[in-house]
């Protein structure tokens, strides 16, 4: 049973995402929410963290949080899926459990 990880803090400010990626398992999904969505941008100082991990883990990002912060979908790292709150709910039910990296 795979795990859904939620990351809600900025990767520029906090080590939450980095720790999450270091502890995720193959087949898990990482959902970026709230200030965590900044990790989905390409061309930043932390973009590499996601790239290095993309073989094993799927990445999703909450669209409402992107829009609130003025982040256009064209600026996302390729292959990251944008979901709405309903999609968040689906991710929770599709994975065996959820771990919040607070």
């Amino acid at each position, binding site marked *: 049973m795979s795990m859904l990880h*939620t990351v*809600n803090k900025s990767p520029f400010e906090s080590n939450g995402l980095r720790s999450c990626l270091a502890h995720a398992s193959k087949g898990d999904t990482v959902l970026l929410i*709230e200030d965590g969505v900044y990790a989905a941008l390409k061309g930043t100082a932390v973009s590499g963290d996601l790239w290095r991990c993309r073989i094993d883990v799927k990445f999703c990002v909450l669209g*409402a949080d992107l829009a609130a912060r003025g982040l256009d979908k064209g600026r996302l790292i390729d292959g990251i899926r944008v979901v709405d*709150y309903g999609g*968040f709910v689906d991710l*929770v*039910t599709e994975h065996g*459990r959820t771990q*919040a990296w607070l």
Partner: protein
Amino acid sequence: MKLSILINEGPYTHQAADTAYQFTKAALDKGHEVFRVFFYNDGVYNGSRLTVPPQDDRNIQKNWSELAAKHKLDLVVCIAAAQRRGILDEGEVKRHGKGEGAANVAPGFRISGLGQLIEMGIQSDRLVIFGD
């Protein structure tokens, strides 16, 4: 599916309370059962009936109370966390001599013990946590 929600931060200061609300609404819209919403740490502040947000802003407490009334949600505020932070119901107000009318827990919220959190972990298919 049977879902439960844990909220660890207070209203307005962290987005956690908002995200949890949007998530809970979406889960109900999809026909899932929400077994319980548990408020812990600063999350207990979401259950204060005394909040008066600016008129052009959302009212987080009221949103929860209305959602609870509509869907018979079980909103539980942790008693230990709430005492420490000054969220009290009638019984607590009396017990600690805080004076008549001082109870500030909002409609639709009930104050109970941490066992309710463990129980919801046992009873639910999924537990989702929102915090800082």
